[in-house]
């Protein structure tokens, strides 16, 4: 498959499949599985193509920028598209068991709408990572948000609907702020193309206001503290595969766009002090999210608050990269951390969903003995937890280590403290779960059977987080010549 076709297919294939799954609900499951499998091959192929020839770029329909739509792939895009594909397949396998439609009308309704929405979400994610201009990014962010909100509403309970509604408003406000920024930039520079803007942008008040607006909007989408409030209810009330996809993939979309904006478009024009502010919000997220996770009564809420905390770590890269001489290490650190969280958190959410399904509830203090009743899911939570805490040899450790090393080298001690304290807090909330898991159950607790693939797919994701810890050099190589200061040509 040619490079152009690969990029186009990555967006079009899930879109077409989504329509197909919607029109022929009987075939939704096989269509969904086949499409995600195809995406896996396409994603892997994109990684190969990009690592062979660097940047890829394609004008859809032959219309060049600034008029037409351009798809664009560099190492960063390829890595994220690959991650979406790999994690997407495993989530799909889990969903294949979760949404089998056997269990009455309600369950059939969920199965009916899950697959189209999920495929739509994948298309939006791929389009987001392959977009080369600000306006396309806006469109994809909007699509991504809508698909995500609809998926949250899927479980249909009152709590889920309220959470979805709140998510919808936050997402819309975020998009609006972002769009205002885009309009300002377009007015000032006459283009929305990332590469062209990077050449033209000057550190004027105009540009700075635009950056602040866009950053604010994207922070809401990425659920950065204090705009995280919508995330825990939304992520915890959704069905397990949806929670996994939202926490692992969707919130990363906002972070990705911020990374491009700050370091590709506005590099140098952004003020280091502003980067410190973003970092401080990240630090607050780490501490606040972890403390909240520690006091949650329900497993899925705990996992959701842990996402708030882990997102915070990603934003520590802003102040660190603003002062760094060698940024390559930082990009690797941040992106390995992102991938580690994506794999570990989706695994953990799926496993938490399994446990909830088996036990009929997810109250942490009543989960005694789950290592006995659901050993594999309990083990998955433990293994994923090890990566979230950031213990070696997982990928979570590698990411944390690289950020820690950069903070030490630059003498930015305050971030060192945040990273270490955050790890200990993460350990504390994981210990709470694990001590109950290993506890002997008071009597033989009833446990409903679960299809095997649902447990193995979760486990595979946790193992992915572990394996990535040994092969983090591969993403480092992919990132070598993207984002300025990466040590490339």
């Amino acid at each position, binding site marked *: 498959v040619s490079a152009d076709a690969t990029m186009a297919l990555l967006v079009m294939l899930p879109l077409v499949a989504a329509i197909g799954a919607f029109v022929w609900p009987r075939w939704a499951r096989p269509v969904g599985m086949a499409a995600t499998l195809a995406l896996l091959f396409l994603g892997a192929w994109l990684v190969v193509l990009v690592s062979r020839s660097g940047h890829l770029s394609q004008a859809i329909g032959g219309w060049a920028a600034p008029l037409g739509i351009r798809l664009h792939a560099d190492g960063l895009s390829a890595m994220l598209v690959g991650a979406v594909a790999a994690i997407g397949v495993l989530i799909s396998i889990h969903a294949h068991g979760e949404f089998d439609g056997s269990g009455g009308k309600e369950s059939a309704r969920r199965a009916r709408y899950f697959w189209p929405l999920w495929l739509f979400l994948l298309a939006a994610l791929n389009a987001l990572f392959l977009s080369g201009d600000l306006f396309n990014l806006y469109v994809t962010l909007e699509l991504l948000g809508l698909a995500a909100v609809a998926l949250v509403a899927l479980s249909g309970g009152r709590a889920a609907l309220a959470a979805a509604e709140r998510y919808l408003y936050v997402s819309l406000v975020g998009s609006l702020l972002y769009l205002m920024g885009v309009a300002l930039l377009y007015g000032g520079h006459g283009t929305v193309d990332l590469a062209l803007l990077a050449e033209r942008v000057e550190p004027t008040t105009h540009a700075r206001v635009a950056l602040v607006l866009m950053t604010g909007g994207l922070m809401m989408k990425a659920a950065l503290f204090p705009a995280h409030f919508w995330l825990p209810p939304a992520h915890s009330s959704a069905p397990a595969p949806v929670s996994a996809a939202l926490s692992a993939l969707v919130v990363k979309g906002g972070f990705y766009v911020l990374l491009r904006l700050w370091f590709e478009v506005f590099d140098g024009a952004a003020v280091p002090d502003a980067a410190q502010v973003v970092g401080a919000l990240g630090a607050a997220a780490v501490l606040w999210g972890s403390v909240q996770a520690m006091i949650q009564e329900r497993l899925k809420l705990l996992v959701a608050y842990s996402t708030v905390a882990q997102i915070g770590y990603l934003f520590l890269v802003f102040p660190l990269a603003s002062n760094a001489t060698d940024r*390559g*290490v930082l990009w*690797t650190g941040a992106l*390995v951390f992102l991938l580690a969280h994506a794999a570990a958190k989706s695994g953990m959410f799926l496993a938490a969903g399994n446990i909830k399904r088996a036990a009929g509830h997810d109250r942490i203090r009543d989960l005694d*003995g789950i*290592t*006995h009743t659901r*050993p594999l899911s309990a*083990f998955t939570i433990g293994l994923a937890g*090890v990566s979230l*805490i950031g*213990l*070696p*040899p997982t990928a979570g*450790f*590698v990411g944390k*280590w*690289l950020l*820690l*090393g950069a903070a*030490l*080298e630059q003498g930015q001690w305050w971030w*060192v403290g945040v990273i*270490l304290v955050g*790890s*200990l807090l993460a*350990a504390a909330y994981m*210990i709470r779960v*694990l*001590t109950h898991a*290993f*506890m*002997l159950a008071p009597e033989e607790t009833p446990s409903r059977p679960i299809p095997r693939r649902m447990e193995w797919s979760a486990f595979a994701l946790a193992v992915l987080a572990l394996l990535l*810890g*040994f*092969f*983090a*050099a591969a993403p*480092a190589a992919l990132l070598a010549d993207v984002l300025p200061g990466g040590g490339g040509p």
Partner: protein
Amino acid sequence: VTLPQVVLLGILLSSFVTGCVIFLLKEESHRLRTSLNLAGAALKVALVCVLLWLVLGDESPHLSMTVAPGIVLALGADANSVFFVILSSVLWFWTTLYAVGYLEDSPHRSRFFGFFSLCVTATVGIALAANLITFLLFYELLTISTFPLVVHRGTAKAMSAGKVYLAYTLGGGAVLLLAVAWLQSIAGPVAFTERGALAAVVESHPAELRVLFFLFVLGLGVKLALVPLHGWLPRAMVAPAPVSSLLHAVAVVKAGAFGVVRLVYDVYGIETARDLGVLGPLAWLAALTIVYGSVRALFQDELKKRLAFSTVSQVSYITLGTAIFGPLATIGGVVHLVHQGIMKITLFFAAGNYAETLGIHRVSEMNGVGRRMPWTTVAFTVGALGMIGIPPLAGYVTKFYLKKGAVTAGEDWVTVVLVVSSLLNAAYFLPILHRAWLLPPADRWPAERKFGRLETHWMLLLPPLFTAALVVLAGLLADAPFSPLAWARLISGREYGP
């Protein structure tokens, strides 16, 4: 890939793969699990023998892999590694045998032996780590893999002990992580090097290196049970006996001790450490721990708790020997890595036998136990006398070298500490021996089980007898080639200049 590299990896994988397979086994497949366990353990011992042979043949096996920028995982085998890896693999074999006997018919055995295998993987990883970050990796893996063992019984008491254990060890791990990352930001990646790896930066960063030394000690001190970081150890006694043996003699506490040995000799270098003035405070801390642990042991009626405080005390002999400058003290400290291991594991095996066979958990219940279980009690006696330092047992050799080393170094106060400690050791061990051998037994034991002709299950009896024999041999044949002492001399010779 060369033969030495295969051997290095094989030593790790022989227990890692075993562990992974065991996790997947059904609870009922008792024989398959036992055979796998013992085969893995035996294979590891065999591979370690090959490694020894290679190292003696002047090979220096090395294997490394770049994980990410600035993170290189490296395995290697120097004299220190070989010493520790022999200890852990041999004792692991016997502990496995013991654990199989001990846990017969108890629930969750697949989970137990899976983590058991991961635990020893981490331990040999610590032994074979060739740089700081690899050491850190296995050090944390050890924390994670021992937690399920500590809480294995699943009772509320076990859980609270497990929480305390994790709080201490993960806290220590975080400090260690900080220390390693900070040192790397000063000196670049640090590989373990005989006589120290920091020569290039000592001149420019003396103050930071001093602070770092104590950060390292703080991080390692938790596993080492250095006072006041020892709180987790007595609590962790709720774990099953084979786990206690493993924690005290082979894995956790030993990992901390080995870490200090690495820190002083192969990261800082003993001469650099002396010049920085960091050895003195470390020696004082060790001395304090030695006396404190012994005093606390005096007042414990629970046998395993008494042994636990005794461990707190005994392990710090290693630290003490390491913290005194001079080849003789080094020999005393390093050789105690092995001596403490074989003595303490004997004591724990015996304590486990009393508990499993007769239901005895307290010292006050031990009257006349020597008549009911003579062989176990002989092993216990050998271990206890060794701890006190009666010649010609292993503990005597340690104390002899420590004393000579301290006097040579002009640190005469250490001899006082050693004498006091030996007296205290006698004060908490001799009453036990007196009860066991000389007092008449009670009418009936708390919970007796019969095992046919033998005094207990053969799998429980054989390991303590074997390790007790080692205690005798390590002392009697101390001057023979291949004794622990001979190897410690070799290490000491390499760590000091010609």
